[in-house]
């Protein structure tokens, strides 16, 4: 009875709020966060899932009511704006792209590649501004909608003139931007020209110099996530540091990891996926410091709260949706992975161990692919059929590339060891390129989907997540894995417990 009661009460409350209260947007956001927080508080119960669904519905309603979502088209566009560079600067072959925040809104700027600009600089931009254009063909990326969700009011012409007015000193922002630039430079000086861009892509998710063919190969094999800073990056780095620091004691190790995860989250650009990973890690490490064991669904809810508070539009963001769904997939796949984990521990033959490990990787990868499939089919309009297979070698190699890359950047200057590490990194990156390109050429690796109905996508996603939860419970006797964190099948390091 309890879930039904909670659901009814929640919906009644929501309809009441929407119908009567003056600042409906704010109320809805607060309610969303409230519901998700309730879902995030232990102990677990079936009403939690319903709370999550209600939270999501409220979130979508809130976005629909956001003043910016309903803002009219401005009457006149300025020809000159003064504001701060408030996004990382993306460098293309012939142009720079970044966002300028002003008191009247955000502007997407494109300019010539020679400008020496960095994050937070105050600039004056003179250009012929125009409203973002709608897509001109079906299936095309909807830039107009993207701009609306990112609060961008206008875009500059390609020939805009940018004058640097003032270099700002936001210590944290500047430091992080400098660290990113430093890592990027180190990669380019330590590696040959053909693998350096891939290293930047994996370490910093900078894909500007990455050959388009290779990006396509990752896209066709459903492994493009290795090029965006995700939970995997942060978990692996923090777990490694945590493991190295284990001699300093449990508390010290967790404390350092805590600080590091926050820093890494910021350094990666602070998108929804890193924010999710950082929130989850912080909560997990806090729990570890308090000797408690958090449950994955609660962590996920907490992460959703953090993301919603940072930017309510995240609900509509394709990257955020996919990132959260992938974690859902990992959570529901955990019992199945555990089932194999048991067998792997028990088996004595090395061949059997390897075979079972590969099978385990495939099962987890398959479940995650299936859970994210409806959303991928909707947002990308194509779906990689080879993804469950491709994710095993690509995930494995990219994780090692991440670890060796981090080592190379930090200790790559030591005379002999440094050389060995860089060579090793180059080898891993070469193999990664080879595997991705090879798998991308498999016929029908990637199929067109043409999914246009968002409601069906929501129903299918919820259905798949609950279906696998039930299946996991029936087959394995528990909803969650024994590990109180989402499962990383190809993790070379032991997960944090």
């Amino acid at each position, binding site marked *: 009875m309890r879930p039904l009661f909670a659901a009814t009460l929640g919906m009644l409350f929501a309809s009441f709020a929407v119908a009567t209260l003056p600042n409906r947007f704010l109320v809805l956001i607060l309610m969303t966060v409230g519901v998700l927080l309730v879902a995030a508080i232990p102990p677990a119960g079936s009403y939690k899932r319903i709370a999550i669904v209600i939270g999501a519905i409220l979130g979508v309603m809130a976005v629909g009511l956001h003043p910016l979502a309903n803002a009219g088209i401005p009457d006149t566009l300025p020809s000159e704006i003064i504001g701060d560079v408030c996004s990382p600067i993306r460098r*293309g*072959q*012939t142009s720079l792209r970044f966002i300028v925040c002003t008191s009247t809104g955000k502007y997407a700027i494109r300019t010539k590649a020679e400008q020496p600009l960095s994050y937070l600089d105050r600039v004056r931009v003179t250009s012929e501004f125009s409203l973002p254009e*709608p*897509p*001109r*063909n*079906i*299936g*095309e*990326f909807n830039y107009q909608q993207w701009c609306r969700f990112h609060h961008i009011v206008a875009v500059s012409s390609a020939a805009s003139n940018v004058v640097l007015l003032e270099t700002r000193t936001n210590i944290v922002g500047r430091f992080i931007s400098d660290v990113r630039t430093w890592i990027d430079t180190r990669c380019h000086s330590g590696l040959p020209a053909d693998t350096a861009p891939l290293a930047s892509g994996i370490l910093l998710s900078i894909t500007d110099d990455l*050959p*388009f*063919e290779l*990006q*396509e190969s990752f896209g*066709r094999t459903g492994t493009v996530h290795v090029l965006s800073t995700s939970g995997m990056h942060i978990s692996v780095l923090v777990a490694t540091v945590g493991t190295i620091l284990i001699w300093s004691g449990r508390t010290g190790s967790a404390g350092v990891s805590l600080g590091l995860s926050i820093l890494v989250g910021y350094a990666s650009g602070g998108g929804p996926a890193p924010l999710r990973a950082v929130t989850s890690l912080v909560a997990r490490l806090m729990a570890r410091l308090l000797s408690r064991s958090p449950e994955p669904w609660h962590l996920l809810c907490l992460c959703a709260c953090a993301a919603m508070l940072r930017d309510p539009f995240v609900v509509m963001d394709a990257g955020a949706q996919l990132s959260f769904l992938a974690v859902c997939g990992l959570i529901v796949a955990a019992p199945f992975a555990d089932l194999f984990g048991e067998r792997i521990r028990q088996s004595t033959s090395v061949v059997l161990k390897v075979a079972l490990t590969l099978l385990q990787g495939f099962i987890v990868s398959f479940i995650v692919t*299936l859970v994210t*499939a*409806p959303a991928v*089919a*909707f947002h990308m*309009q*194509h*779906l990689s059929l080879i993804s469950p297979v491709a994710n095993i070698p690509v995930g494995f190699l990219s994780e090692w590339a991440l670890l060796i890359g981090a080592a190379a950047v930090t200790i790559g200057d030591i005379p002999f060891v440094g050389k060995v590490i860089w060579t090793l990194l180059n080898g891993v990156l070469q193999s990664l390129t080879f595997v991705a390109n090879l798998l991308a050429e498999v*016929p*029908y690796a*990637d*199929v*067109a*989907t*043409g*999914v*246009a*109905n968002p409601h*069906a*996508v929501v*129903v*299918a996603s919820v*259905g*798949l997540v*609950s*279906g*696998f939860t*039930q*299946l996991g419970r*029936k087959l394995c006797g528990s909803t969650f894995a024994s590990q109180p964190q989402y499962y990383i099948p190809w993790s070379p390091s032991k997960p944090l417990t």
Partner: protein
Amino acid sequence: MFRIIFVCFVTTALAVLPGCGHRALTVTCIDVGQGDAVLVSFPNGKHWLIDAGGNPAGDTEAGIDPGHRNVLPVLRAKAIQSLDVVVMTHPDEDHVQGMLAVARHIPVGRVYWNGFEGSRTEQSVRAKFAQKGTTVEAVSVGSRTLVGDVEVAVMSPPLSPIMGTRSPENENSVVLLITYRDKSILLTGDVEAEGERELLRSAQAELNEISLLKVAHHGSDSSSTPEFVRRTHPGIAFVSCGKRNRYGHPSLDVIKRFERVGTQLYRTDQCGMLEWTSDGHSEAVTTMLPCNENALRGAQGVEN
């Protein structure tokens, strides 16, 4: 347990599987900026792609060429897994460059081209198709094929190519006439005045009263001669050209010629993607962007 699995998979299938089973002939003029890309979807579920756009100057920042930016998204949104035939009307960049993306991502049954070796891009496209094991075949006037109950006839290039004009590549473009019951569609590539004259000379009454015409050479005044417009007398015409393109396409003269015979003119630079659908008797046009009567008539046409 099986009930749960069943429900999950049915919902996924519902979400993932697109609506199938259309029994109409659809001609989609994809907006590729300054260039051409026409997708023909036959009632029996076969798909032909005629050109795939490209940047006229041939320069491109990888990934933003029309093949990736416009053509693949359309094919994906229509859940097209493979193309039965790809036609490269002629080797100009604005028609073939986007084919590289198509060749890489979509399995293609057969490639037709006009046999005129051209740019390096065109050669690399043919090489790419050959590498994938796709048959590449030069066609000329006289070839006919049935796709279900739709007839596709090659009207050009002529058996002895037109030479000695300003642009022999354009003049010898592959021209297709598609006939479905009462309706006929003429896809002209970039043929110019001489090629049109040759078309009218060689063709019989089948070129009279065309239902849908893809206007030759993006509406340039080197094509669509008054005689050709009068004879074909199209009910509907599509012009594929870039917004504020530097060639001044379509020419105001050409727009007037079509207006004079009462043709309803649609332009990709004003209306985005254009789609013509017919069951062989009635027909309908949809445009991607709202497109008012003024825009249709080409009242804002650029002076040439």
